[in-house]
């Protein structure tokens, strides 16, 4: 029973990471209809920035804030410089740009910081944090930090005029222009926020998966699965989807372990977690493409 609770808790912690990255994906998707394949690599890059800042002597949380702010500016810059000229480009060109960004981030990080795996500290105190036997201090910290970030974002979009303008620009860009919203800047701002949320996810997960240029590859897949489960156009759904995928992958591995223990037959285990994410992706796309909370888009012809 304790092991079961542990698995749920660690699933929630992973899920919190997936939820952040899924939300980052959705934020760009709702305003541009594109999936940013470089989202994970951007987060990885931001994590290296925070690591570098800590090497230079900054405290964890100061490095955290600086790296998140840097990511925001990086996101805004990428949108303005790289994607702006491609505004009317076909989808495939943009996909190629995203893959290019992915490769660039990955190799630049490798070139600067090498591909050697590095340890990454946890900022959460070991003694006073967590619930013994159920959830570790870092896992609990991750859940709390991501919930705070998600709450702040929710508040921003729901209650501030700028958040309202961003939602309006995503929903109906032409009409948003007609009420004076600078839609182009809203897109850039969306990119910045997505990169910042991704950075939070990267920094939080680095202690668990260790720091290396390929650390976000699998996580991006889980996040994508989460976003799909929730409905790719629905931010709240994506967050919930991220948590669902996080718990689900752990439950699959846990069940596999239990079966192996009882019967001695190995069916599924930790090694197949990523497979589970891919199966979720394919399953959702075939059976319920709109996801749990997504809206079915009906086109009038």
């Amino acid at each position: 029973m304790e092991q079961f609770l542990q698995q749920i808790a660690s699933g929630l912690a992973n899920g919190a990471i997936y939820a952040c990255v899924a939300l980052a994906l959705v934020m760009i998707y709702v305003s541009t209809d594109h999936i940013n394949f470089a989202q994970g690599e951007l987060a990885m890059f931001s994590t290296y920035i925070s690591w570098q800042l800590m090497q230079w002597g900054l405290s964890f949380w100061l490095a955290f804030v600086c790296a998140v702010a840097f990511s925001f500016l990086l996101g805004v810059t990428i949108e303005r410089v790289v994607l702006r000229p491609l505004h009317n480009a076909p989808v495939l060109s943009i996909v190629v740009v995203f893959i290019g960004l992915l490769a660039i981030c990955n190799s630049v990080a490798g070139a600067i910081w090498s591909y050697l795996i590095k340890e990454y500290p946890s900022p959460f105190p070991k003694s006073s944090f967590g619930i013994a036997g159920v959830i570790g201090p870092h896992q609990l910290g991750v859940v709390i930090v991501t919930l705070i970030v998600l709450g702040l974002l929710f508040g921003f979009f729901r209650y501030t005029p700028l958040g309202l303008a961003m939602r309006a620009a995503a929903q109906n860009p032409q009409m948003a222009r007609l009420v004076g919203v600078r839609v182009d800047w809203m897109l850039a701002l969306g990119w910045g926020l997505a990169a910042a949320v991704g950075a939070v996810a990267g920094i939080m997960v680095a202690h668990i998966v260790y720091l290396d240029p390929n650390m976000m590859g699998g996580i991006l897949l889980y996040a994508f699965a989460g976003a799909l489960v929730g409905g790719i156009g629905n931010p709240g759904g994506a967050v919930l989807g991220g948590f669902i995928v996080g718990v689900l992958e752990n439950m699959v591995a846990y069940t596999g372990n239990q079966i192996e223990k009882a019967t001695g037959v190995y069916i599924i285990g930790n090694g197949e977690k990523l497979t589970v994410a891919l199966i979720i992706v394919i399953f959702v796309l075939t059976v319920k493409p709109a996801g749990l909370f997504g809206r079915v888009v009906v086109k009038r012809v």
Partner: protein
Amino acid sequence: MAMLLEVKGLRAFYGQTQSLYDVGFEIYSGGITTLLGANGAGKTTTLRAICNMVRTEGAVRFDGKDIAGRATEEIVRLRIAHVPEGRGTFTTLTVDENLRIAAYTRRDKAGVQADLDRVFSYFPRLKERVQQQAGTLSGGEQQMLAIARALMLRPRLMLLDEPSFGLAPLIVVEIFKIMRRINEEEKVSMLLVEQNAALALDLADTAYVLETGRVVMSGPAAVVKNDENVRKSYLGY
């Protein structure tokens, strides 16, 4: 009366297709001008060209300033409010948010609230639905919302694209009455595009008739109304 909007030699293009050829007209502040014409004559395109929502050549002067070629959102910020064809509702936002979005750059909360109250005095029905998702409103309510949202921009000029489209006659009469009140009480000038020529000529003081992207006739609404060609082509008697 002072000239508010002056359009000269306006040409507009959708891709390779030219849909306006040398359109020119003037709007004096405080008045209501209407553009009449058959389907495809270029009425909607003229409104879109003023806001630079379509590739445009020619001169557009608003309040003495040349605004041709400026970005749509910058033109709107000069207080030209465009109520587009199809009403442009933000369907997933609430009625309240649909109205507040037009004031999002303003910091004076009291002023925004006062404007909201004033808008609700014209459209009490919107006040009843203030927290409702705008996509769930009826067509007439969405048209009211579109005009109300335009009012929240504190416009000097309103461009109205077929406010009667797809609405029941009683609702149309109600909306046109409110438009007249807004024109008189808020001193908002209006440029009205309408299929329903009889209604438009009753409301407007000046009328222009467009045919295949050119102005073919203009004058005081009362005169245009009695023109034989206009009567036969657009009024049906």
